[in-house]
């Protein structure tokens, strides 16, 4: 068992075999989180550093719990408490951290490409935990795991991704990963929130939610990033909701066994209606559970292999 990459910077570099291996391994890890003693000794003595320059509860906690359930030591550093506020640049911060011999760096940064840049300067594996509007690979992997657990397969499924595609790293990572796994993707949203060149990625583009969700197996609703909506792309949130909020009505003609996922955090009533979110078709909390298993699998697969003695 061997991943084709040393670091997980995005789903673009992952092969179908990589993704299958990660999902299968994560499937086996799920059981550990249901034990009363939720810990195995596998990564005892390993050190994982979470370096987060953007706010996060789900992702950071998930990486931390994943590391701890494998007995690794996990250290959290957030941007506001790091020496970057004293003017140290990102590369120096990472180099200094590496001098303390961590085994994995998990990096979230507001700039696209920051984890890839760091990977050129440090030797230890890096996991991208979200960089700008670029990629969020562990999120895409946990989405796939959640879908596969319910549907039993991925190949041939059709997914609609609804919302602010433009700013969404989750959408980008998912589109790549889903295409690699033989799934069809349709992106849905108002024209200003969908990048012009997206059709060239091989995805369908739709501006009509009700039509788009008619024949899909999964709807992925994205968060409207309120902090990024002062750019004049939307006239108002209410108008957005009128057209693109996922409600029971917009799902009226959809398949009975349609699944609904959302990477969180949710703006209730803006992109998804309360009753849809709470319905049995919604897997939002299953996603969070899958997230821990996926991150355990990533740590496990990345760490063992890189221990190979170079001599």
């Amino acid at each position, binding site marked *: 068992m061997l991943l084709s990459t040393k670091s997980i910077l995005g789903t673009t570099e992952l092969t179908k075999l990589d993704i299958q291996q990660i999902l*299968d391994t994560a*499937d086996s890890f799920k059981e*550990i989180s249901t034990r009363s003693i939720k*810990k195995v000794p596998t990564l005892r003595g390993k050190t994982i550093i979470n370096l987060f320059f953007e706010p996060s509860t789900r992702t950071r906690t998930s990486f931390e719990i994943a590391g701890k359930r494998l007995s690794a030591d996990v250290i959290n550093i957030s941007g506001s408490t790091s020496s970057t506020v004293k003017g140290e640049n990102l590369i120096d911060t990472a180099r200094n951290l590496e001098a303390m011999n961590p085994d994995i760096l998990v990096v979230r940064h507001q700039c696209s490409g920051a984890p890839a840049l760091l990977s050129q300067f440090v030797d230890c594996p890096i996991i991208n935990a979200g960089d700008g509007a670029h990629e969020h690979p562990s999120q895409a992997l946990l989405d796939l795991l959640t879908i596969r657990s319910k549907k039993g397969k991925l190949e041939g499924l059709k997914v609609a991704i609804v919302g602010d595609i433009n700013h969404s790293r989750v959408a980008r990572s998912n589109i790549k990963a889903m295409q690699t796994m033989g799934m069809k993707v349709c992106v849905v949203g108002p024209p200003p929130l969908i990048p012009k060149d997206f059709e060239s990625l091989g995805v369908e583009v739709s501006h009509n939610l009700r039509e788009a969700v008619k024949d899909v197996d999964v709807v992925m609703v994205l968060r409207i990033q309120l902090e990024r909506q002062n750019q004049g792309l939307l006239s108002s949130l209410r108008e957005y909701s009128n057209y693109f909020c996922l409600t029971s009505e917009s799902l009226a003609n959809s398949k009975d066994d349609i699944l609904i996922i959302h990477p969180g955090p949710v703006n209730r009533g803006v992109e998804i209606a309360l009753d849809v979110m709470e319905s049995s078709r919604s897997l939002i909390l299953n996603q969070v559970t899958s997230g821990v298993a996926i991150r355990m699998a990533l740590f496990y697969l990345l760490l063992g292999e890189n221990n190979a003695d170079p001599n």
Partner: protein
Amino acid sequence: MNSTLLNAKDISRAINRISHEILERNNGAGNIALVGIRTRGVALSHRLKEKIEGIENITVDHGILDITLYRDDLAEGIQKPELKKTEISFALENKHIILCDDVLFTGRTIRAAIDALMDFGRPSSVQLAVLIDRGHRELPIRPDYVGKNVPTAKSKRVQVLLNEEDGEDKVMIQEHSK
């Protein structure tokens, strides 16, 4: 050159005998549970369970352990075996656990399995049933039930084939290991 240590009949007789020994030692099957170690220990544990249930006419708890995460050689850069599921859905408390594996060699797998079991609870006792004991222990571990003791050179390879995994029942020893 390969030579056969046990054929299908021998294996079936050994399982029969071990089933009776387990029942004798534990005064019946009331408090026992069988746990197979992946991969071939699982098949053995299923066969023992079936036998014991047939003799005693009761249902015996059964579980499966994947000990990969508890191995002591993961950090040594070996190619990692594929991780499979562990399934233990009953409480271990007040149970006599019979761990089942195909070959007992260094004892390191059993050490890992005992560690894994302890993470699930505190059984009354843990006993060990193996089809082949080939010696060369590296840890103070001994089996309670043995199909066959086979003195071997350390370099040789003992291969257990079981119907469930390999399509036939046979135990072989490879005279010249690769």
